[in-house]
């Protein structure tokens, strides 16, 4: 991959980045030679087989660990230690079990030093956004799986990091709620100009949300293709199904992702 000239727009750059975990049973190669450039304000979806290294890629951007080979640059500099510019909604919800929903959403606000009043208002707003208003006083163990995810999403949205890393955020939501959340997310991201990396296994979602979609090979994964999604930035997700470009793009992605199935179907 060639270096792009304007370093300001290249917010995240992977240069032959690899990650091999060292374990007592020997090395586990999670990612191999990742090359990817994400521009500021882009919405990238990541799709690929289970275990191909999608979460690993997000981890490297967040600075959970450095790449074992190659480089991961954020805003021109190698990521070293926890990357304070990103917000990360991990695959596991990682809620604080000893805090209620409201208190969980408030964590980043407390860290940011907001006053009690400001926190309360913001928490109420966010709880409403994710449909948890009635459950603000519940503990995570009293929530359903999808509700926990929504709580984690609200917590992420509570502060305003430059970049959002979302690891299968909507997998546990029903179709309707998922659509609503997708619309909310796109509108927030769009209005605030955030950069997003979004992992999903739902190929329709991967197309519907993305500016570009990175497709991983089977693990130890590398990025096989980056599919451009030439849909408008302002798109009506609800009507997308009827857009022929969308239908074609999902078909393409499907073929890319599941050649065996596609083959069978072609018979």
């Amino acid at each position, binding site marked *: 991959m060639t270096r792009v000239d304007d370093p300001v727009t290249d917010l995240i750059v992977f240069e032959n980045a690899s990650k091999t975990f060292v374990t007592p049973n020997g090395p586990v190669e999670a990612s191999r030679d990742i090359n990817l450039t994400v521009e500021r304000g882009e919405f990238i979806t990541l799709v690929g087989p289970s275990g191909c290294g999608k979460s690993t890629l997000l981890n490297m951007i967040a600075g959970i660990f450095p790449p074992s080979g190659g480089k991961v640059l954020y805003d021109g500099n190698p990521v070293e230690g926890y990357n304070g510019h990103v917000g990360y909604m991990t695959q596991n919800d990682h809620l*604080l079990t000893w805090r209620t929903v409201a208190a969980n959403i408030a964590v980043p606000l407390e860290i940011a030093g907001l006053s009690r009043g400001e926190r309360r208002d913001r928490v109420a707003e966010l709880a409403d956004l994710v449909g948890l208003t009635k459950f603000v006083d519940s*503990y995570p163990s009293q929530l359903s799986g999808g509700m926990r995810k929504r709580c984690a999403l609200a917590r992420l949205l509570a502060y305003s990091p430059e970049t959002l890393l979302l690891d299968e955020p909507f997998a546990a939501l029903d179709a309707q709620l998922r659509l609503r959340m997708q619309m909310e997310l796109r509108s927030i991201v769009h209005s605030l100009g955030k950069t997003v990396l979004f992992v999903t296994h739902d190929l329709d979602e991967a197309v519907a949300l993305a500016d570009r979609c990175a497709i991983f090979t089977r693990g130890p994964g590398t990025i096989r293709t980056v599919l451009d999604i030439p849909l408008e930035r302002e798109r009506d997700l609800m009507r997308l199904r009827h857009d022929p470009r969308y239908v074609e793009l999902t078909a393409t992605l499907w073929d890319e992702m599941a050649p065996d199935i596609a083959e069978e179907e072609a018979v």
Partner: protein
Amino acid sequence: MKLILIRLVILVAVILAWEFASGALIAEFFISKPSKVADVLGRWISNGDLFYHAAITAFEAFLGFLLGAAVGIAVGLLLGRAKRLAEVLDPFIMAFYSLPKLALAPLFILWFGIGLEMKIVLTATICFFLVFLNTYTGVRSVSREMIAILKLMGAKEGHVVTKVVIPSAITWVFAGLRISVPYALIGAVVGELMASNRGLGFLLSSAAGDFNTAGVFAALVAIVALAALLNYGVSVAARIAMPWERTTEKREFSI
């Protein structure tokens, strides 16, 4: 309610068995009858001795406990978060911990005298280690993932400690505190046995010196009662500090 009843039944049964065993199975010289112990307690209560001595011991135990627990929690948090430092200091801490405090009595007296300070310091030392070791283990077993999540939100060490480490380790801290409570009393009493002219330990040793077995047992009963009181205080503190725990036990769970 039913629980208290069952406990009462057991207590009464134990006391009755003891009443009959004493004198019959074992000389009263060694284990005195509960009725006589009650007599002594009654006398000490009516002449104010009990309250006077118990107040002193309670004061020593409580202050020593607070001091030891506070330092134990602080050092446990510090070393739990500073792994390298903990590794360097580990053998020294364990060495100090292994010293039989009884054997150091002359030194304790030399440095801290024979007054309240000495007993408070002795109690604090004992409690410190118990609270420290549990707190440390608790802090070490806080989920690294959770800490990472918080750091990504821009949390400073202070936030990490107050928002993740303490809440995660608090069960450990309270386990350490509960383990320490009886030792706080034991520490104060042993301190009083070392040197004193007041406190339950003094009552105990004077009774022992006079071969007044009923007195010895009365002092022991008072010590146990104090420990129960202090223990209750810790339970209340635990319930306040861990609101989610209280509901966890009662909470219906789903999987």
